[in-house]
Structure formats: C-alpha cells, structure tokens
C-alpha cells in the first residue's frame, strides 16, 4: 500500500501537476477563447461550458453503468429492464440531448452572424502570406492603412470585411469571437463587439504555407479617447527624421529600394506589396507578432529575414554594413 502511495505521489508531482498546470495555463491570457473579452466569445464560451458539463454528466453515467454491470452486479440482467436501458439510454436519450444541443447552438447563430447597425466602424483586413493588411474605412472609403495591428474602441460593434489576394487564411481573435475564413475572390464579414479593454492576440486559423504559424496580430481594445488619439496618430504622415543617424537611415531606406514594396506616407516610398511602415515604430510587435519592437529586432529582421520567418517574401539585405544597419533600424524605430 505504501509503495502504491509513493508511486502515485511521484507520478503526480512529475506528470499530473505539471500537465494540469500547463493545460490550465492555456485557459487565460491574450489568446484564449475561455477568457472572453467580447460578446461573440462570451456566447461561444457559454456553449462550450454547457457542452463540457453535459458531456461530463453523460460520461459519468455511462461509466457508472458499466461499473455497475461489470463489477457490482455481474451475471444475467432482467431482459425487460435492460431493454428499457438500451432503448432509453441508447436511442431516446441521445436523440433528446443532441436535439437540445443542436437547437441551443443554432439559436446563437443569427446573433453571431448579425450585421452591426448602420454607421458602425468598418475595418477591411486582407490576409497575405504571412501578414495582415489592415485598412480603416470611413463611410466605406479607405481612411488609412497599417499592418499586423488593430485598435478597437471598447463597447462598440465593429464589422470586419475580410479577403485574401493569395491563398485561404482565417481571421480569428479568440478572445473576441469566432473565426471567419478569408477566401480569394470573395469578401466575408465578421462582426465583433469587444466588452473590455486589453491587449489580445489574433491568429491565422487556416494553414496557409511555411510561416502560417508566424502570422499573428495584436488587437488593442481601449477607451474611446485613447482610440481617437491613436486614430489621429495613425492617420498622420510619417515623422520626419531629425537626428543624423535617422536621416542616414532614411537615405538608406530609399537607396536600398525598400520603397518598391513598402509605403511610408509623407515620403516617396509608396510600394503596395508589403506592410505600410508609416508608423511601424508604434506597433507592439514586428513581422506579424514574431519579434519585439526594438532596434535589435529591426536589424535582425532586415539581415536575417528568412531565419525569423521561413520563406518570407522579403529579401535579406546582406550588403548593408553594421553601421548602416543600425541607422536603418533607428530610422524605422523613429517612425512612431
């Protein structure tokens, strides 16, 4: 008995507790559907919990009956009564329970799919290999563009217009709501309603190539005043470099041809292929949420792009020396 005890104890400290802790760790945090911060996510989490509780009750009942039949009362059972269990538990109960669940979850659909009221905030998001082009719309017309980051005012419905120019992606902010596919040649829609402020993480939820797992974005839900201030900053053209280092950086940006792919509003760089860099320094993360936003990361991104993101569609710049790289990084960092 003691041996069993110590084996059990060893087993639980070694495996059970760490694994449970690891699993529970996934329940909170910026990318959890079980820690909702939006209406859709709240509905989905409720459906999830009801199903978990229901499934647990059914599981316990079935296992309990199995133990009863095999251990507590082995041997032949009353034919009539077993028949009741088989028909009742095997046919009628599943039908009733499944019908209930189907109706319960279907009833949420209209609410999850409903369009927001006329005049609500609209944001167009394109999924590309392997980043997100985000365009804020004003009366249906493009207002300004950025990449890999979305800010939302708390308590207001927002409608996302989703599409893709290359392959199928899927737009998912687990903390706010359900996911919707981005399909080439089509425009899909998703309405979300953030209910509390915070910084959350969005992901691509449909395998889209080598760096699919490195295609994420930051979602900041904030108070309306903070949101308005952010809008004003993002709308404005890029900050002009003022120091020697950042001025050199801008020259390198031009001479290296970065502007063929990237735009920096207020300069000649107006490429449309790659993320808009006008305010890249203000973003939470770099490269679609794979590097922190600091000078070292800019350097690493420009020099070792393909190491950071396999198969990335941006060339690596090996010709820049260390000083030039620092200047270029300093310039990008100054674009806040």
């Amino acid at each position, binding site marked *: 008995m003691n041996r069993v005890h110590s084996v059990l104890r060893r087993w639980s400290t070694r495996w059970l507790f760490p694994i449970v802790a690891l699993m529970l760790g996934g329940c909170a945090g910026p990318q959890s559907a079980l820690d909702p911060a939006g209406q859709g996510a709240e509905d989905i989490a409720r459906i999830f919990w009801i199903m978990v509780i229901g499934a647990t009750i059914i599981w316990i009942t079935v296992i309990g009956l199995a133990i009863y039949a095999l251990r507590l009362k082995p041997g032949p059972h009353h034919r009539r009564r077993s028949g009741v269990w088989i028909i009742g538990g095997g*046919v009628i109960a599943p*039908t009733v329970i499944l*019908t209930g669940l*189907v*109706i319960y979850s*279907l*009833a949420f659909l*209209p609410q999850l*799919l409903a*369009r927001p009221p006329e005049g609500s905030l609209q944001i167009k998001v394109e999924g590309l290999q392997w980043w997100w082009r985000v365009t804020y719309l004003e009366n249906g017309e493009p207002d300004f563009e950025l990449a890999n980051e979305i800010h939302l005012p708390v308590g207001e419905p927002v409608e996302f217009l989703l599409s893709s120019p290359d392959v199928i992606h899927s737009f998912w902010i687990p903390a706010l709501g359900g996911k919707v596919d981005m399909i080439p040649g089509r425009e899909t829609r998703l309405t979300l309603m953030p209910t509390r402020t915070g910084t959350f993480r969005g992901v691509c939820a449909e395998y889209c190539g080598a760096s699919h797992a490195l295609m994420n974005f930051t979602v900041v839900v904030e108070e309306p005043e903070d949101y308005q201030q952010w809008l004003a900053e993002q709308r404005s053209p890029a900050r002009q470099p003022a120091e020697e280092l950042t001025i050199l950086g801008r020259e390198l940006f031009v001479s290296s041809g970065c502007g063929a792919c990237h735009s920096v509003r207020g300069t000649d760089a107006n490429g449309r292929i790659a993320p808009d860099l006008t305010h890249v320094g203000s973003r939470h993360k770099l490269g679609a949420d794979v590097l922190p936003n600091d000078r070292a990361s800019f350097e690493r991104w420009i020099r070792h792009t393909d190491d950071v993101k396999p198969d990335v569609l941006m060339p690596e710049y090996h010709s820049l020396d260390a000083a030039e790289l620092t200047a270029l990084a300093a310039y990008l960092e100054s674009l806040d």
Partner: protein
Amino acid sequence: MSRISDPEYMQPTEEQDRFWILFASPTIWAIHLLACYITAAIWCAKFGETESAFTTVRIAFAVYTVVALAAIGWLGWIGYQQQRRVTDKTPHDDDTPLDRHRFLGFATLLLSGLSAIATIYVALVAVFIGSCD
C-alpha cells in the same frame, strides 16, 4: 392458405429479399441535404439581395423535408413489417433465410429512424437562420 403458412412467403430467397431498402433511407437523407444545400446556394447567389429570397428557400426546405420524411417513414414502416414477420422477438441472428429477412427489416427500421432525425436536423438550420447572409 394463410400467408404465414405459405412456404415461399416464409422463406424468401436471396433474390426476393430487397437489399436496397436497407440503404434507401440514408440515401434520401443525403439527397435531402444536397437539395437543401444547392437550393440555398443558387437561390441566395441569384436573389440574395431581395427580402423574399430566403422565404422561398425556407418553403423549398419545408417541401423537401415533408417529402423526405414521408418516404423515410414509408420505408421504416416496410422495415417494421418485415422484421415482425412470424414473431417480433429480436435478435434475428440465426443462419436462416427468414432471419436474414427479418434482420434486413430491423436494420431498415433503425436506419430510417436515424435518417429521419438527421433530415430534421438539416431542416432546423432554416428555422434558425433567417437570411441569405
């Protein structure tokens, strides 16, 4: 001569047993699903903008569902009659033509029940989703 004592009736040969009725009900369920899916897809693509488009889709779903359930119900009834032949004691697992016959009937009945429920689930979608969006 009563039907029960007719030896041919009692012992249907393999040729006489209708194997197809076993999977007829699931086939109707599949056709019902396809019909609903295709109708909704085409109708919403062509007339999705108009208010009444989805009403038409709902009516179509209702008609398909009534027809499908009637057919499934009829097949289930045939199966029920068939498994009850001579006696309705299950199981039918003797190696005889009669038990094969009754087994087929019983399986048809169960599959018809399953198909009926599945068909209703498909139709339920149109009850809860009210528009082409």
